[in-house]
């Protein structure tokens, strides 16, 4: 359980994170979406007590992070896979964390095994690791204390498609067993497949949040008929607004309503489907449009 209440971080006059609030419930994966520089990482660092918020508060399992007695046993954190000592071996990096957490050394081997870093890789210095291997090591570190909450910043970066697929399975499984997952990404496709809930941030502000289905439904329905004019008339008769889109008419209603309207008017459809991820992508793009360019020149 993660609870974020009105978190704000200002650097000088500029708010990097502006009045952000959301909750992550046990048993769910929350995708934290936004373009680069939107404030995702800053928000996550504030949740983990690494950055002091200008205003607002965040709790993990009911406590401010800094007040958790042994945070690694409650929350697994992966904020930057590159933040490892280049001169330590993967195994050594995990061993240090295991000592700090008061865990048995066997946990190190078990977690290395879990993330797919074999004995050869574990003995290598992190300097020689690819970004994908560093992500796996970081994930092993996050999972080390068998936490109930996972906070992962762009964990899919550098993973190959097989690795991304594997990680989705791992996170889904973790949530299905009652865990809470918050993972960020700047790529919609990456979180869409695994998240139950989405929190979309742009320019430091939350621009949309809700269940994935809710946000998807907001995308509307795509419908197509051989007789385009008849279809438009049918939709108009049913009081539905239709907009042109690349692959048919985009209607702000669910498929059942649209199908019924067409049927009532006797129009034969060639296609009827939820706008689906395309709609969500549209939403993501429009919600965050301009933000990324503004970030880039700041």
């Amino acid at each position, binding site marked *: 359980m993660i609870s974020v209440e009105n978190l704000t971080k200002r650097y000088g006059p500029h708010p990097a994170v502006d009045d952000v609030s959301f909750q992550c419930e046990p048993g769910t994966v929350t995708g934290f979406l936004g373009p680069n520089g939107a404030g995702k990482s800053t928000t996550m660092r504030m949740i983990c007590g690494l950055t002091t918020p200008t205003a607002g508060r965040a709790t993990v399992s009911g406590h401010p992070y800094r007040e958790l007695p042994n*945070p690694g046993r409650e929350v697994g954190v992966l904020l930057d896979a590159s933040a490892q000592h280049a001169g330590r071996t993967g195994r*050594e990096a995990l061993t240090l*964390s295991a000592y700090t957490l008061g865990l048995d050394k066997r946990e190190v081997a078990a977690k290395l*095994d879990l993330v797919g870093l*074999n004995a050869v890789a574990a003995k290598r210095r992190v300097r020689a690791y*690819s970004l994908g291997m560093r992500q796996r090591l970081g994930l092993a570190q996050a999972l080390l204390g068998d936490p109930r909450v996972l906070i992962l910043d762009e964990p899919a970066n550098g993973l190959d498609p097989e690795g991304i697929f594997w990680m989705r399975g*791992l996170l889904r499984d*973790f949530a299905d067993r009652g865990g809470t997952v918050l993972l960020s990404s700047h790529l919609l496709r990456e979180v869409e497949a695994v998240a139950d809930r989405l929190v979309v941030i742009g320019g430091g502000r939350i621009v949309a949040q809700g269940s994935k289905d809710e946000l998807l439904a907001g995308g509307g329905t795509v419908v197509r008929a051989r007789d385009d004019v008849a279809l438009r008339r049918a939709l108009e008769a049913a009081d539905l607004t239709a907009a042109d889109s690349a692959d048919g008419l985009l209607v702000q209603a669910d498929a059942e309503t649209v199908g019924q309207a067409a049927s009532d008017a006797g129009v034969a459809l060639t296609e009827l489907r939820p706008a689906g991820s395309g709609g969500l992508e549209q939403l993501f793009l429009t919600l965050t449009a301009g933000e990324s360019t503004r970030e880039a020149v700041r």
Partner: protein
Amino acid sequence: MTTTTAPTAGAVAPRHHSPVRRPSLLRLTAVELRKLVDTRAGRWLLITIGLVVVAVVTLLLIYAEDAEQTFGTFFVTSLLPANVLLPVLGILSITSEWSQRTALTTYALVPRRERVVAAKLIAVVLAAVASVLVAVAVASVGTLVASATGGAGTWQVGATLIVNGVIVQVAVVLMGAAFGLLLLNTPLAIVGYLLLPTLWSVLGEMVRPLRGPAEWLDTSRTMEPLFGSDALTGGQWGRLAVSLLVWMVLPLAAGLVRTLHREVS
């Protein structure tokens, strides 16, 4: 990729633990001690100190006058390599967390940063004490060899000599750590540590009005009496205390405040 194996599926169920306790300071100190030796840089820094100590004692055995080949001479000379390199160890133990960005992990696991800093200071103090033990051991071997090869080989092992050695080594390693905490940047801290107190030596020599303050602020002068077997006089203690207040206690305090509030990213 050849270095990754097919991961075992599942087995990441969140478990409910019995209430967990925070890591003890002892545990954190053990972790920090391990960090001093688990990288090539750290390990070689310590090995270098040991090798240079052996080298200087060997040189003394070959070139020093027979009458000077006493335990006291060997011991005091053995302190010098560590006296130069221990501050670097102190600096690195603090700053490498930031330069290598491991602070992100360290302070995520132990959000009470002052406990990590305390553990680091204890760890480098232990390293300084260990360096004095090495000096005693190497000096003892040197004295034995000297008595066998015609040198004086005198054993005048006063407790004051050893205690002075411990004080000076602990002082320099903490000064290093203090500069590291304050500047949080390896090159800056090393240059600062070497430059600032030395600046006083130079200025004290050149500028007449500064000669007085330099006696109190130049650590190379205030620590000099510690490389001897005599107990320090009241005045010498006073000057040592003032110089350490300025170059160790103040940066340590300011550095702690800075470290506690710094954003980790």
